[in-house]
């Protein structure tokens, strides 16, 4: 019954989304309040139906109902309960249901706390309803997680073992809130274009949504990078993989959007560009979904799927892109003209920031889809990897990092670099920058890493100077929250740059076949293999190696065999300290000629890698503070209106 009820609820959510679109449209177009209220009621119906369907899917996983094809393909009776729950979004169909649920959540959110202009809000709810209808239709007719198997198999195939990890349990929901959250910005932008709302008002309306979505996207991407670092066993946290790029492109445009919307809201600058970004960021989110789910790319993160579903997503991408960008082409004139500004003004630097972010997104887009076009044109398969992205995208991001600390010190409109430079007290900033640079050079770091490390220190010091200078002038709670958010986010960027630079300068990995009692040395630390013991879990068999670190502490990497899935994995052992991570993984047993057991051990040292996590966390907290500030400002406006 769970399966059939779940299927019906998805159908109900689809119809409710359609009703939300149609009723709200009539409500906004004809000024019929009853229809607008009916549209709002439909948002709750869509949200409740999809949430209930999702709950039923989780229940089916907990019960191990293998008559549901999706459960049979992604679960096993012996899998721990936590991963039975998270498997609900561990595959294509379930994650699509989550995606649709988040879309419905944002639809409901728009109806409840959307733009203050009621007509704009109703129109935005309608457009959100259109996006929901497209995705729910895809879910109901081409990716239904409640499709059945008759006869049901005795056992399930288990969830891909590398997805049985706490970080990956939370990574997709956060990522989807980010991707789908951008749909709210899209809906408001499109609604504003239809309503001919001025750009400034539109920027004000969409900014909190863009901020929230971008913050969640940051958290999702960071968790994904952290997972890749310790789960995949090769120690990388970013590989310019197509799926990583698919999330990075909307992130870059989202970052550009939250900055340009400030300039548009405060000074009316670049209204067209801000709205264009709001539309494009969501389109790129769907492009990401297409890349991950169509099967056109190969990646450890991709859902291997048939191209038929890719055609569906391509259709949704086409509708969103044509509708959104077509509307922009037709109505951009109604957004109004921006006010003028000097080259040394804050607007100019925000513009430069936007250009760099957009250019980086462009570079990533070209590198990601180039292999597809080559294959479509009949060429031999090619892959575009880190050498391209490092050479093309990293320099742009470095220039961006150079500008980040300067913008907060520049005045709006008329500009003037002198006071900014004076306030920055460049000499004091240059000392830590130089110190960082020298430290990296001493460790034998590559030139790019030295520059990135120094720029990270520059951004970090700039953020400290920013808060020190502006805290006194920020009189209200909202302004202080906004300043704290900005400072944390910019300082977080600095930490990430230093962490990435340090990681790029790490010593060479050590690969050795070791027997108990033998030792290896890495980065001045001696590690002795104490023993290798069995450490089986409920759905896996494991060999756990214990290595003693000279000076105290042990690290215990594992090699696991998930018998239901028939896959081996490496569970990395980490020894974390302020200096960095000792990173160990254990491979296959390699018996020696005398019959004694020895094991492949891979040891690496990742200096200052914690800075990456700290930086990401600071950006996320910064984003949340900025959202809180927006909520306070909105509340103030509402009280003012009342």
């Amino acid at each position, binding site marked *: *019954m*769970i*399966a*059939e*009820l779940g*299927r*019906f*609820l998805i*159908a*109900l959510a*689809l*119809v*409710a989304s*359609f*009703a939300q679109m149609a*009723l709200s449209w009539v409500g906004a177009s004809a000024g019929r*309040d*009853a*229809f607008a*209220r*009916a549209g*709002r*009621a*439909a948002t*709750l*119906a869509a949200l409740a*139906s999809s949430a209930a369907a999702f709950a039923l899917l989780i229940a*089916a996983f907990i*019960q*191990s*109902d*293998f*008559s*549901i094809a999706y459960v049979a393909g992604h679960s096993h*009776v*012996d899998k721990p309960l936590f991963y039975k729950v998270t498997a609900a979004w561990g595959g294509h169909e379930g994650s699509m249901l989550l995606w649709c649920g988040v879309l419905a959540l944002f639809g409901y959110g728009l109806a409840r706390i959307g733009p203050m202009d009621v007509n704009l809000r109703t129109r935005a709810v309608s457009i959100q309803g259109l996006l929901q209808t497209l995705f729910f239709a895809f879910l*109901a*007719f081409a990716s*239904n997680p409640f*499709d*059945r198997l*008759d006869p*049901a198999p*005795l*056992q399930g195939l288990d969830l891909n073992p590398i997805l049985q990890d706490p970080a990956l349990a939370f990574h997709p929901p956060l990522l989807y809130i980010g991707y789908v959250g951008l749909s709210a910005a899209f809906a408001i932008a499109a609604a504003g274009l239809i309503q001919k709302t001025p750009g400034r008002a539109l920027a004000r309306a969409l900014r909190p949504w863009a901020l929230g979505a971008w913050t969640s996207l940051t958290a999702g991407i960071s968790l994904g990078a952290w997972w890749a670092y310790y789960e995949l066993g090769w120690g990388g946290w970013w590989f310019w993989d197509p799926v990583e790029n698919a999330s990075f492109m909307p992130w870059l445009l989202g970052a550009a959007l939250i900055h340009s919307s400030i300039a548009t809201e405060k000074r009316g600058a670049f209204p067209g560009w801000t709205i264009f970004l709001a539309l494009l960021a969501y389109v790129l989110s769907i492009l990401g979904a297409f890349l991950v789910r169509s099967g056109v790319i190969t990646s450890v993160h991709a859902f291997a799927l048939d191209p038929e579903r890719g055609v569906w997503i391509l259709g949704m991408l086409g509708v969103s892109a044509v509708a959104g960008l077509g509307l922009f082409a037709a109505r951009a004139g109604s957004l109004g003209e921006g006010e003028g500004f000097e080259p040394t003004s804050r607007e100019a630097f925000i513009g430069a920031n936007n250009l760099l972010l957009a250019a980086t997104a462009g570079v990533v887009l070209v590198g990601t889809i180039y292999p597809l076009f080559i294959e479509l044109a009949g060429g031999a398969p090619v892959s575009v990897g880190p050498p391209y992205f490092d050479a093309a995208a990293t320099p742009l991001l470095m220039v961006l990092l150079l500008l980040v600390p300067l913008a907060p010190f520049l005045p709006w409109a008329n500009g003037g670099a002198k006071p900014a430079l004076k306030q920055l007290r460049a000499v004091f900033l240059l000392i830590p920058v130089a110190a960082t640079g020298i430290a990296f050079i001493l460790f034998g770091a590559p030139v790019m890493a030295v520059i990135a490390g120094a720029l990270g220190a520059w951004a970090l010091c700039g953020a400290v100077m920013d808060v020190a200078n502006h805290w006194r002038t920020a009189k209200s709670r909202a302004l202080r929250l906004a300043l704290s958010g900005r400072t944390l986010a910019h300082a977080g960027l600095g930490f990430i740059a230093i962490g990435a630079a340090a990681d790029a300068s790490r010593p060479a990995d050590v690969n050795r076949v070791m027997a108990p009692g033998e030792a290896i040395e890495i980065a001045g630390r001696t590690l002795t293999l104490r023993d290798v013991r*069995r450490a*089986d879990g409920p759905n896996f*068999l494991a060999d756990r190696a214990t290595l003693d670190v000279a000076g105290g502490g042990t690290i215990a990497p594992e090699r696991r*065999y998930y*018998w239901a899935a028939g896959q081996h994995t490496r569970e990395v052992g980490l020894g974390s300290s302020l200096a960095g991570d000792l990173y160990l993984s254990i491979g296959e047993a390699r*018996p020696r000629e005398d*019959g*004694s*057991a020895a094991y492949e051990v891979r040891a690496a040292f990742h200096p200052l890698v914690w800075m990456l996590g700290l930086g990401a966390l600071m950006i996320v907290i910064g984003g949340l503070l900025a959202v809180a500030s927006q909520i306070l400002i909105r509340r103030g406006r509402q009280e003012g209106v009342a």
Partner: protein
Amino acid sequence: MIALTLIIAALGMLTALWIASPLARSALEPMQRLAAFGVMAFVALAALGAYLAGGSPGLPGQPYSVTEARLAAMDPEELSPEEQEERLRAIVRREPANAEALAYLGRFLAFDGRHLEAIAMLERSLRVNENARVLTDLGQALVELNEGNVTPEAERAFAAAHARDETLPEPAFFLGVAAYEAGDRETALEYWSGIIRRLPPADPFREVISVRAADLLSRPAGGPQMLGDGEMPEDETPEQMVSRMVAGLEAGLEAYPDDVARWMVLARVRAVMENPAGARAAIAEARTRSGDDDGTGAILDALERAIQVEESEE
């Protein structure tokens, strides 16, 4: 089915009412009331239609507990191998300390070629109750996993099984193999002849072990002592090498006349060199040297038969 129909109908109607209620509440004219009714009907019917497009209302759900109960109620003889495995797994899940079920499951998995899993189950069973039969199964699973090699881990399992129950043929056989692989033919012969002595004459395993032991122990390449001193010179022909080997063996037998394994090798080499009388003489000498040992006698009988078979084939 009836419950599902009722729930679906109730959910559809409630949702339709919820969405259309703002319209119905504000409807002042018949047309507006009609619009409200239309929205309501559309929501309910469209949802039902979208559901029926792929739904299987007659197909009941099948939580694992239902499957488990069904398998438990079935006659074990009627279960397919997959069902047998599931039933065993269900017992092990329910009673993680049931050594017997763990051992059965381990054997099942080993038979199915899933040696890693089999070893884990057998080890779990042994942690609950150490048993010579399960130790033997564990040793065999380890040998299978390592492509026929008796690893030190497997040898430990066989030794523990042998210590617990010397009458079991498998541990002694594999301990013999381990000794043979280590070049210790005397110990190998001791293990194998010991098994044969203990087995009843009609036991088919006795013949199997005799034949295998005769084959292995009479192989010239089994140990360094067979080649005499020195490596094979580069310009030595195969005939010269065999002659040197025979000379080496004969010299070795002068020094160790009671080494039955060397006599067996000599017998096989002589048979290959088309000297059946010499081969039989070597076997007879081996028989004399082994005294009245029934086990060694059976192995020598097997060797004699093998040599005769080779002769008749030629």
